[in-house]
């Protein structure tokens, strides 16, 4: 039984079948990549997992509980965090504040009116936030405005914001999209380091095969909204169906 079980998920947009009978099982403490050509339904699947979209049919279970019908913030509270394709951070806030917010969210749940407390007084949370900034090597930038940072830094910050919540499942939507090779490698190293340090399940949607094969333990290939195969990276590499799907797209 995987930590995330997707069964028979269908999603249509008007006449377009975005997802057709998707089944997916992500085992706890693994890195699971979902790959596929453009328009294969990767993002739609991800949005179904986090509550942004609701599938027409099928079930999505996280740790034995259905996520369907729950709001994004409730799903996050269940232990799923998401990294976006373009980093979604609080641009108007400082780096430290960006990390403090998930700390509060983790501790207090969805809402608490702590209007007359002081942020620096939350020693425990401050320490936690500082630690994660040290982990992602951003502690020097703690008072910088998030909006003024480079894209790579924003990505690292976003990951820090997700990790500080100690999620059980981290969803990464093309975490290296638009990055230079060096940055990509840094990100790979960062993710490897994270994986090494803690018990965490990761589901990565990725284009870049280099990233996928550096990180993934299992790979699911999606094409036209349906999973083609699911296997280990070694087996996927030479799989004819996969090559067909990619080459077919490349030629057509």
């Amino acid at each position, binding site marked *: 039984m995987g930590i995330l079980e997707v069964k028979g998920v269908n999603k249509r947009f008007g006449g377009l079948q975005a997802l057709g009978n998707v089944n997916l099982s992500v085992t706890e403490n693994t890195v699971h990549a979902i790959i596929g050509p453009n328009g294969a339904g990767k993002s739609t699947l991800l949005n179904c997992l986090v509550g942004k979209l609701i599938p027409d049919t099928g079930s999505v279970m996280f740790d034995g509980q259905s996520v369907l019908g729950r709001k994004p913030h409730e799903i996050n509270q269940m232990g799923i965090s998401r990294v976006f394709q373009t980093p*979604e951070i*609080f641009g*108007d*806030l400082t780096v430290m504040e960006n990390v403090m917010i998930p700390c*509060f969210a983790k501790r207090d749940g*969805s809402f608490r*009116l702590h209007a007359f407390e*002081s942020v620096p007084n939350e020693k425990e949370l401050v320490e936690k936030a500082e630690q994660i900034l040290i982990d992602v090597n951003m502690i020097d930038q703690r008072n910088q405005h998030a909006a003024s940072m480079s894209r790579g830094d924003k990505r690292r910050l976003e990951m820090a914001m997700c990790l500080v919540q100690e999620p059980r499942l981290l969803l990464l939507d093309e975490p290296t999209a638009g990055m230079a090779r060096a940055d990509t490698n840094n990100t790979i190293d960062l993710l490897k380091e994270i994986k090494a340090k803690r018990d965490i399940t990761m589901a990565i949607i990725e284009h870049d095969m280099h990233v996928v094969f550096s990180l993934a333990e299992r790979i699911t290939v999606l094409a036209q909204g349906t999973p083609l195969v699911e296997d280990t990276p070694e087996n996927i590499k030479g799989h004819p169906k996969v090559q067909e799907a990619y080459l077919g797209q490349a030629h057509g």
Partner: protein
Amino acid sequence: MLGLNSKDTKFLLIVIFLTLATPILLQPFPEGSGMAQFNAGYPDLMQRFAIYGIFAIGFNILFGLTGYLSFGHAAFLGIGSYSVVWMYKLLDYNVIWGLPLAIITSGIFALAIGFISLRRSGIYFSILTLAFAQMSFALAYSVLTPLTNGETGLQVYRSDKQVLLGATEPTSPHFFGIVMRENFWEPSVGNWQFTFNNGYYFCAIIAILAFYLSLRIFRSPFGMMLRAIKSNQQRMNYTGLNSRPYTLAAFVISGMYAGLAGGLLASMDPLAGAERMQWTASGEVVLMTILGGAGTLLGPVLGAGFIKYFENIFSKINDNVLHTWFGFLPDGIEDFMVTIVHPFVGKGWHLTLGLLFMAVVIFLPGGLVELGQRVGRLFRRRDINSADAEAKAAKQRANTPAE
């Protein structure tokens, strides 16, 4: 001190000093001089500065922090005033009954209106709040006259019950015998005369408390959450936080501030007019906040003072006054100067205000606070790095779309 870091404590102390010294600071010109026209240190206007300052501080908690632009906050102002006057009518003139009630009733209304309006965001939210306020105004002016006394405004009549009214009790608003409209000290120094008014200091103390509270909210985790909502609601949701309760709490708090301000208006002057709820009054607090610098702590107060000053001082400058000013010039030039200045003062005060709005928005995107900063920077160029929270807030506002 008081749960603030040293920098904020210093800031608070400066604000307290400025507020308490207002009766002196606003009388910079000696009586009898031509410039005495510009003195603003008389009780009514000082009270208004404090009260509208509270109103704007509260509005800023909603708009400045979350970016939700309410166009209906005047409704709470009106509700606060009506609550207080009703307490006069039913109990007695002690404001102790009315003010808490004003905060509670406006809080309840804010909860209801906010609960519905916050289902939408952006301009759709603005129009929903506007619609509620306009409905309140229209009904208060007409159908609800038995409750509001309509056009005339709610006031105390001799036939009113006033069950708690004692024989020796003052017959105008007071706080345990401290009568609001009385002055406790009227010193004069040379040609300068100052008025220290009970009502003003009552408002001033409440305004300081309101400011302190808003300072705490700004620095609190709650305030941080509100700024996060303004910055990126999507990330907020994916961080496991439901933004609705936060915005609703901000809406209710700012509604209660507005109710308090409305209640204080009626505490200084026992009459509640329906115009207080009109959209122009809602628009006024938006203007105050943006003009002063939305999202900054002091900006809204400056904006409130700015607008009230123009309304009360510039509208009173008539041709006769102009002739006094330019009386030292030869007749021809005097008349010429009067003709030039005439359209901008007296009945033309709106024109001046409109021009200044435009000038501030065009040249000072961060509002009046930014002006202060620029001037400040001129004086201490080196200190550019000072992580002045105000400057940051002002800059942020200029860089990012607010709603």
